[in-house]
């Protein structure tokens, strides 16, 4: 069609050739008696069926119903996927219900707040101050000074323990990430840290209770004018030199032999080995070269708890 030709879809103008042709298409009238015939048919027609009990719903309601069913189905599938751990396998973090509730209510959740641990790990563990013990302790002042130093060392140890826990968790996560293994989600890590913190706190509480009982006994003894022995301070019998030499011999053994020998040690001997290992680890964490294990424990070694 050229530009000058009229649009063939334009309305049909009266009097045009097409209109003249179309006007020739005449329709006949309805025959006489048509109305009577329809009325007779209507009379003979059976009564219409009753209305459905459930009225036909509008289109908008049907669409809304389908959207609602779709949303519910999606929610059910998502919940099932989260419950079966499928989303975690796809590395999609799924917060726990407690976490979501805490974020909604604004209340901090104890288990989901690893900040204190991180802060403790970030702060370098203070090096325990050297405790100097001059002679036997037989006065309340000397005992108070001794206990003050012990508390200082204990606080440093606790910081060290927490730093070690944090370092181990981090290194394990890094190792798993480097090996392509699944790493725990932030929620899982928070749960793990909370669980460990709970165990550490319980251990410290038990140690505090034991130390408090021992300190009461020491105070009573000092008030009676008696001098405190090392056994009073540590709560343990002193390690005999033979035992110490035996422990030193453990270091040259293979892991299997060492494990066997470890099982054969008495609880006291095991504790001594543990203390030495702790001292080496603390030195390693603080960046200082590990001190050579002492053959005989110094006189001012704080009590282990």
């Amino acid at each position: 069609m050229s530009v000058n030709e009229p649009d063939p879809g334009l309305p049909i103008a009266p009097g045009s050739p097409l209109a003249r042709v179309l006007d020739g298409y005449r329709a006949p009238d309805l025959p006489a008696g048509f109305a009577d015939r329809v009325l007779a048919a209507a009379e003979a027609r059976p009564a219409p069926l009753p209305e459905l009990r459930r009225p036909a719903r509008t289109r908008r309601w049907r669409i809304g119903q389908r959207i609602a069913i779709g949303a519910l189905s999606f929610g059910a599938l998502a919940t099932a996927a989260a419950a079966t751990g499928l989303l975690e396998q796809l590395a999609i973090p799924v917060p726990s219900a407690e976490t979501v509730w805490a974020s909604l209510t604004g209340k901090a959740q104890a288990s989901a707040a690893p900040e204190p641990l991180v802060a403790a790990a970030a702060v370098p563990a203070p090096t325990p101050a050297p405790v100097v013990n001059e002679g036997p302790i037989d006065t309340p002042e000397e005992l108070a000074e001794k206990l003050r130093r012990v508390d200082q060392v204990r606080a440093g140890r606790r910081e060290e323990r927490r730093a070690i826990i944090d370092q181990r968790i981090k290194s394990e996560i890094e190792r798993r990430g480097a090996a392509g293994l699944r790493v725990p989600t932030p929620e899982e890590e928070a749960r793990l840290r909370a669980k460990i913190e709970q165990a550490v706190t319980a251990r410290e509480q038990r140690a505090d209770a034991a130390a408090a009982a021992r300190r009461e006994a020491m105070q009573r003894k000092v008030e009676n004018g008696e001098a405190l022995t090392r056994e009073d301070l540590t709560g343990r019998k002193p390690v005999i030199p033979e035992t110490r030499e035996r422990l030193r011999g453990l270091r040259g053994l293979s892991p299997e032999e060492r494990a066997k020998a470890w099982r054969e040690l008495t609880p006291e001997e095991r504790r001594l080995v543990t203390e030495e290992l702790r001292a080496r680890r603390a030195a390693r964490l603080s960046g200082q070269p590990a001190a050579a294990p002492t053959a005989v424990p110094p006189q001012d070694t704080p009590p282990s708890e």
Partner: protein
Amino acid sequence: MNTATEPAPATAIAPPPGDDAAWAERLAARDPAALREMIARHGATLHRVAYRMTGDAHEAEDIVQEAMLRLWDHAPAIAAKHAVGSQAAARLRLGGWLKRVATNLAIDRLRRARRISGGEVPEEEDDAPLADAVIEAGERDNLARALVLALPERQRAAIVLTYYEELPNAEAAEAMDMNIKAFESLLHRARTALRQALTAQGDAP
């Protein structure tokens, strides 16, 4: 387009707003006089539409009868939806409802006939010898019928409703259950097809 011999279209005798709801109520109460009144008001229009759609007077009568009986059957539901005095009652147009039913019935029958015959509905040819004037009128009538009946069903309905029944596009679209844009597109295609068919007839030897 309405010839002088045909009755005026239904729009000319349309009842005042709200009146159709009262008629629907009477139909729902199974009042034969109400049905007779509906036939008197709308029967001729429906018959013209049906006839020009199918090209068959008997078929057209059947369609009108079926449309009226459907109104009879659906009157209780229509009356319940458009209670007298309500806002819905003012919107009720039984003429439009009947046109929609009749148009759909005609389209359904045309499609069914095409499926059965495998082609277009056959035209009825009149081979009897006639006087010249009658022959000329008959030829024009046959040409118009041929042009209209050659259109696809929906285009045919669009032409019948807008050209012959002079319905506004909006009402015709409503009668065909279409939105206005789609209907105007359909109508444009129908007019184009008619003009092309007429041109082809003129070019034919």
